[in-house]
């Protein structure tokens, strides 16, 4: 039998192989930038890294974690950093995320900057606090059919310093068909007073890599790594009335903020907490907040259930959380007081709430939110 039909694939394969060898040889020769020094905040800390990879990952390897939601694909635009050294003009991939002022201030997207030479960087002091924590799962409890409360006790380091409302990034190891490590953000539900054990609320997202792992594989006693504290959702101001609006697992940062206020006796402010869920069986923490109401006279917990057809005994607000918000703004909340709003939930809920709030003259600048995406 003649094997001549093998000639063509063999030749094409050989040409590709030769090209691949040359490319990897050039890559080895050219992409080698040797050891590079990164000087942070005018030499307060100097780290030595191997050149050739992005600034974001070079810093992460040294346990300096800049916030990044997309993991270095230039789609979230939060890994901003000030690079004082000249690293060339802004790349077209950076432009959509930077304002003119930021460009003038030499702010860059760290995931798009390749480390080639010694660099002078400026990193806000609080970002230095961000680091990787190794934790152990101490308790997993079902709150509703698709909502779980998870408590993690910190092992290394053993304590964390964070502000109420901030979040942590869970590092989900590869499992089953998922071959890569995955990072997902979850808000811390416990208050900063409790600095060696953190609480989280996780909702099962069908098909979600992290939530599937947490619901099916994670058990009490397991270890879980996380990066924290991140985010700038936190309490502002001193006297304004607070309108807190949350849906589902959006409960977490609001709970952290409210219990932190109660613990530190910041209970002079009027607080209205609107908590929206779909059906009666989705409601959780109701008793906890009713107890808080008893301790804190100017705090009001207003759960709103969208569909009450399965429970005829429900006496509270029905319909969407925005409907409850409108009822209260019309009839029950004093109009003359200045107001602030704290929102956490789905983009749909947040956008609808902002619409209602602005129509009742709450300033856009006084609306703080943490949007799930």
């Amino acid at each position, binding site marked *: 039998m003649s094997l001549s039909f093998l000639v063509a694939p063999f*030749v*094409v394969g050989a*040409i590709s192989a030769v*090209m691949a060898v040359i*490319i990897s040889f050039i890559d080895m020769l*050219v*992409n080698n930038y040797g050891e590079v020094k990164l000087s942070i905040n005018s030499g307060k800390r100097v780290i030595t890294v191997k050149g050739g990879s992005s600034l974001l990952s070079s810093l992460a390897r040294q346990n300096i974690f800049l916030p990044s939601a997309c993991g270095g694909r230039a789609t979230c635009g939060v890994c901003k950093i000030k690079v004082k050294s000249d690293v060339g003009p802004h*790349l077209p991939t950076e432009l959509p995320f930077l304002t003119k002022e930021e460009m003038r201030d030499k702010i860059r997207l760290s995931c798009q900057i390749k480390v080639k030479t010694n660099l002078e960087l400026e990193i806000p002091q609080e970002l230095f606090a961000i680091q990787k924590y190794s934790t152990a799962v101490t308790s997993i409890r079902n709150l509703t059919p698709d909502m779980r409360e998870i408590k993690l006790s910190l092992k290394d380091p053993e304590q964390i310093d964070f502000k109420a409302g901030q979040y942590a990034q869970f590092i989900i190891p590869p499992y089953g068909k998922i071959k890569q490590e995955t990072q997902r953000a979850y808000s811390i539900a416990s208050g900063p007073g409790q600095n060696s054990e953190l609480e989280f609320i996780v909702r099962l997202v069908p098909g979600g890599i992290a939530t599937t792992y947490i619901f099916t594989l994670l058990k009490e006693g397991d270890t879980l790594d996380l990066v924290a504290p991140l985010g700038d959702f936190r309490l502002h101001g001193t006297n304004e009335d607070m309108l807190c609006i949350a849906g589902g697992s959006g409960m977490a940062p609001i709970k952290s903020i409210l219990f932190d206020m109660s613990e530190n006796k910041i209970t002079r402010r009027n607080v209205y907490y609107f908590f929206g869920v779909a059906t009666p069986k989705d409601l959780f923490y109701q008793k906890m907040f009713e107890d808080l109401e008893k301790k804190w006279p100017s705090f009001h917990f207003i759960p709103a259930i969208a569909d009450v057809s399965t429970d005829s005994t429900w006496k509270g607000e029905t319909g969407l959380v925005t409907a409850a918000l409108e009822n209260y703004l019309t009839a029950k909340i004093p109009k003359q007081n200045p107001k602030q709003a704290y929102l956490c939930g789905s983009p749909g809920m947040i956008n609808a709430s902002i619409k209602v709030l602005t129509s009742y003259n709450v300033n856009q600048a006084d609306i703080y939110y943490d949007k799930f995406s």
Partner: protein
Amino acid sequence: MTPEISPIILLLASIFTSNILLANFLGMCSFISISKDLKAANGLGLAVIVVMTITSVINYAVYHYIIVFFEIEYLRFIVFIIVIAAVVQMLEMLIERISPALYMGLGIFLPLITVNCAILGVSLFIQIRDYSLVQAVVYGFGSGVGWWLAILALAAIRKKVDTSPVPAGLKGPGITLIIIGLMAMAFMGFSGMLNVQ
């Protein structure tokens, strides 16, 4: 048979009368998208000159010494593309190391050259017209220069058009395509001087 054309005539012809862009309409996508900025257009044009010259020579050698030898002429498209893709990849790494400034201007556009039909077109024309090695080098280089000239001219014109009153419906791609058409007609004026196939 190798056609008898002197290298100088072939060089001029490939730059002007048979300009790869304006006579053959190859390499249009990057021509239109990168011509918004004169500096980037210049960088991309120079990169095209380098890539075109190098790939014409390599593809000439690959065709005559490998493809013909193994009698797999029908696979030349695939082989040419592999060579072009590899050369662009190498060029990208080298430019990044040698001139970071040029890399910043071209960085994300360089991969565009890989799928630039002008580059493949030149390699194929050289093979179809049976050029000699010298002719291949001259034709590859000349076509690159022609492409560079054309994109520089378009970028300069577009800069002027940006500040000119253009009817609303023609703003952007519309007026650009009209300009390219007029440029192609202008380049046709050269065709009386020389005609090379």
